[in-house]
């Protein structure tokens, strides 16, 4: 398992809340720190890719474990 600095559990939340919560959490983080996001919204897979592309924050990994989606995002 990779290390991370902060964790955000967005389980049970639907679009656009996982993205908005992630954005808010990233705002309190330092550049280069890593945020681990957990979500259950299947739409979040595409949405976090799109979020990363548009904001410059790097999506290090994206995966599914036991019905939950997990993302590692590095703050730009």
């Amino acid at each position: 398992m990779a290390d991370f600095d902060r964790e955000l559990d967005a389980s049970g939340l639907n679009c656009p809340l996982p993205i908005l919560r992630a954005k808010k959490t990233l705002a309190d983080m330092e550049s280069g720190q890593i945020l681990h996001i957990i979500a259950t919204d299947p739409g979040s897979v595409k949405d976090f890719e799109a979020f990363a592309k548009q904001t410059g924050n790097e999506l290090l990994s994206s995966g599914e474990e036991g019905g939950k989606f997990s993302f590692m995002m590095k703050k730009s």
Partner: protein
Amino acid sequence: MTEKKLAIIATKGTLDWAYPPFILASTASALGYETEIFFTFYGLQLLKKDLNLQVSSLGNPGMPMPMPVPVILQALPGMQSMMTMMMKQKMKSKGVASVEELRELCVEAEVRLVACQMTVDLFEFDTKDFIDGIEYGGAATFFEFAGQSDICMYI
């Protein structure tokens, strides 16, 4: 990188149609867009402090219903509040944010909220009933921002 701009006109005042402007505006802000929503006609209901937004299946045959209800029965008293209650419960159970929450996120993200002055006069709205921090303006005010926007939508 210059900030992209999104301009939205919100014209509808029902619970279901309250979602697109606030979802898109809050998300656009999270993506770094400078965003403005211009509220006109029934859209002004979305700026009330106390939101009493309703949804109706009347005239909306596309609305999924748990069971088929003949249109004549959908017009009965109390049906609209029942539909609204059911819709709100459904949204809550699916983790969909409330309109209040999404609007608050827009305010926090400094989305510029502009109320159409003409509509305020037309319907004799009391501006004290609206949330704080909104601006009032007309069509020319809208174009000042919309004219420089990258995306402009009418909802």
